[in-house]
């Protein structure tokens, strides 16, 4: 596949979001239509529970 890299600002934003998710349970929000990263949220409305990533207990 032709890998399209992230821009520097995108990379920093995604890294901060992933670490916030792993360390503080910040929810990762996904674009409803195409699953692309749509930011983070400290609070997660009930209706978004199944379409956002709150706390994924994977081992990595």
């Amino acid at each position: 596949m032709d890998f399209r890299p992230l821009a520097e600002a995108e990379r920093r934003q995604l890294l901060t979001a992933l670490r916030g998710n792993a360390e503080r349970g910040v929810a990762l929000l996904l674009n409803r239509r195409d699953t692309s990263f749509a930011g983070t949220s400290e609070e997660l409305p009930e209706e978004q529970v199944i379409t956002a990533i709150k706390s994924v207990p994977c081992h990595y």
Partner: protein
Amino acid sequence: MPLLIAAMGLLDTELGKRRLLSIELPAIEVYNEGRDPEYRISVVRCAGSLVLSYRLKPCHNVYQLETRLLSSYPIVPPETRILTPLKHCPHLLEGQTLCLWRQGSTRAANRWDASQFTCVFAVLAAWRWLACYELWHETGEWPLPEAK
């Protein structure tokens, strides 16, 4: 109810079918609501398993994935593999299967909880894995430490 779950076979027992119809399939329907058709989860039966096929696009790249629910699901966690070719990286097993739940390890170390999670949870876990992969691809460093 761990005893009930332990006796469950997803496709061949009454309990398994009930879980499928009342928990797993409704969760997939909610996930698919409002989603572009190419990013929806589709489900097919394959021998004694159910296979979820879907695409994820955490950033700019689109990945094709499948998550397999074996007949022993949900006791045995779902297996997710990425069909799109990847560079070899951490937390990736043979056949591009994602290392997510420490399969085969002790129950205490296994992070899959059949009483709390649905197959959609595995899809979201795969999304997060792919987001990590995108960062690793550029920096050579996996962005999240292994959980203790």
